[in-house]
């Protein structure tokens, strides 16, 4: 009987501690690659499909009950992989990736719906990994809008300086632009510094 109550209490506490972590950022910043790395490490299977063509993720993907364990501390959470946020979607940009005009237009239409869905999810997430391509200029309207909304809603977040494996990458540039926030440099694709990210996640979101 004691065991029963202990298990019940543990489940209740776990439920209370569980957070919903949204992966936000520009299209092609590596959100789904990171979501896949996290899911492969902790539940043994990837979450979504990745591609070089921007706006590959055009709807929200969710994995429930992910548990990260670091130095004896556990973080229970649902992972929410959101479509990339942008202020413009031009179907002509997809044509250079070999898509037909019909496919490109369809992709653009779906991408606009995905961006609306991503913004709506800001009402539901309790923590955010804001993924930035560290080879690109971080000072964009999409990043500014996401950070502004997270600050206004008091949602804890980490800035992920992704793609540090690229020669032109600079995580320092991101830190210089957002000095008041924690920046974690990683390569989700090559798993560089991933253990450090897990440590920061447990520290920030638990």
């Amino acid at each position, binding site marked *: 009987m004691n065991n029963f109550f202990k298990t019940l209490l543990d489940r209740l506490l776990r439920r209370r501690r569980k957070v919903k972590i949204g992966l936000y950022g520009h299209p092609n910043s590596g959100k789904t690659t990171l979501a896949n790395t996290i899911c492969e490490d902790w539940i043994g299977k990837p979450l979504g499909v990745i591609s070089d063509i921007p706006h590959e993720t055009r709807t929200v993907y969710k994995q429930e009950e992910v548990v990260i364990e670091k130095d004896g501390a556990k973080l229970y959470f649902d992972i929410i992989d959101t479509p990339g946020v942008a202020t*413009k979607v031009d179907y002509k940009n997809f044509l250079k990736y070999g898509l037909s005009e019909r496919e490109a237009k369809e992709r653009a239409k779906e991408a606009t719906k995905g961006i609306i869905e991503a913004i709506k999810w800001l009402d539901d997430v309790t923590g955010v990994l804001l993924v930035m391509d560290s080879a690109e200029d971080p000072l964009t309207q999409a990043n500014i809008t996401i950070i502004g909304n997270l600050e206004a809603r008091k949602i804890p977040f980490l800035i992920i300086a992704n793609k540090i494996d690229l020669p032109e990458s600079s995580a320092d540039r991101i830190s210089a632009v957002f000095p008041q926030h924690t920046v974690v440099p990683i390569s989700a694709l090559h798993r560089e510094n991933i253990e450090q990210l897990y440590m920061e996640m447990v520290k920030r979101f638990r």
Partner: protein
Amino acid sequence: MEGLKMDFLSSKALEDKSSIEKVSMIIERVKDGDILVLEGSLTPSEEAELIETTMREIDIENFVGIDIHTLEKDEKSFFGFSKKKTIGLTIIGPANVMKTVKKRSNFLSMIAKIGDSGASVH
């Protein structure tokens, strides 16, 4: 479009408008091809609402979205010990018109595309 139209709006012109009114006014003008220069900035929730509304208004062929840029300025705190950045100007225009933007501290340079020619705005 025959030329580039730019509208400059003082913070006074916006202060009595609700968020929905501000966003509707911006989208309406930008869809007409205008570039808007606002004194000050939108709130984070207005920015999010502007992106959402933009996505609803994109019609693939004629309106592909917006570009937003801000010019920040350093402001000293009351006692002058620390500086904080505030947004002095917000520039919003159609994405297919605002082509090149170079940004440095206290300086913003923009090339707007009109047909086959370009207009430079500093």
